[in-house]
């Protein structure tokens, strides 16, 4: 299984994400934002956390219009897999691959702490290593993680079981406690919490690791 991790100026979780994929057995290529093409044979693209382009204009907006993001969108539109974490989730909403947007946290504070997440669906290659209803503890670290979508979109997300994760104790004001959402074909996931920072014992826990193990297992057999 071959994963590509996009690196923007200001990305700061790109190495963490690469290490999490590697630990699960994936081959990883780092791809610079000015590149226009992805390496051949990429199964999944990781869009990492950080502050791409200094979060200028809106979080993720400049990154979403960078040359490589056209290739990310094309990859997704062909049915390819994409995982966006934190700033990566913001980038994916700005590209239109995922619905909604991440607003400033309701309490206006940057929040950096472990949170409990409920797995709302195990029906995706990202969450197949968990049980629906299972609670895991994973860190968040963001200033703009307050998920917003209009009521019709929220209804559609719930109806199609596209809410992948919800916060047990909503830290940021997100609509319906939403922490992560899937695309309609369930191959694009955006989430604010950081499973890659809870993927080996030295992190203080491994509850994020099943996501990467499950992706590598499923995509290797695809």
């Amino acid at each position, binding site marked *: 299984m071959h994963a590509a991790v996009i690196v923007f100026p200001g990305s700061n979780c790109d190495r963490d994400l690469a290490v999490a994929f590697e630990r699960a057995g994936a081959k990883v290529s780092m791809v610079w934002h000015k590149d226009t093409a992805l390496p051949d044979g990429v199964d999944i693209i990781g869009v990492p956390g950080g502050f791409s382009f200094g979060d200028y*204009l*809106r979080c993720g*907006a400049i990154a979403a*219009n960078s040359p490589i993001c056209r290739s990310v969108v094309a990859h997704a539109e062909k049915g390819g897999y994409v995982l966006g974490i934190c700033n990566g989730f913001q980038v994916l*909403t*700005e590209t239109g691959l995922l*619905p*909604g*947007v991440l*607003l*400033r*946290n*309701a*309490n*206006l504070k940057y929040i950096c702490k472990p949170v409990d997440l409920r797995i709302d669906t195990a029906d995706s290659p990202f969450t197949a290593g968990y049980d629906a209803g299972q609670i895991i503890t994973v860190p968040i670290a963001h200033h703009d993680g*307050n998920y*917003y*979508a*209009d009521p019709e979109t929220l209804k559609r997300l719930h109806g199609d079981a596209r809410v992948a994760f919800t916060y047990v104790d909503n830290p940021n*004001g997100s609509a319906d406690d939403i922490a992560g959402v899937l695309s309609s074909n369930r191959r694009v996931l955006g989430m604010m919490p950081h499973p890659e920072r809870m993927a080996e014992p030295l992190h203080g826990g491994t509850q994020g690791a099943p996501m990467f193990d499950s992706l590598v297992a499923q995509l290797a057999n695809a």
Partner: protein
Amino acid sequence: MKARVHVMLKSGVLDPQGEAVRHALGQLGFDGVEGVRQGKVIELDLAETDADTARATVTEMCEKLLANTVIESYSVEIA
């Protein structure tokens, strides 16, 4: 010519920064501020000399980058 773009959160979208400003104004003794909405002003210097063409181009810029129309509305002034 110059263009000025105003970007505002749509009315149904909670604006926590505007709320914080409203709260701070109240603490300063400015009573009766019933709402504050915070937005952005973006000024552009354009080589274009035709106002209608400039307006159309800047509108396209708003749709593609300057505003996120999921949550924001925008207006364009050409001068």
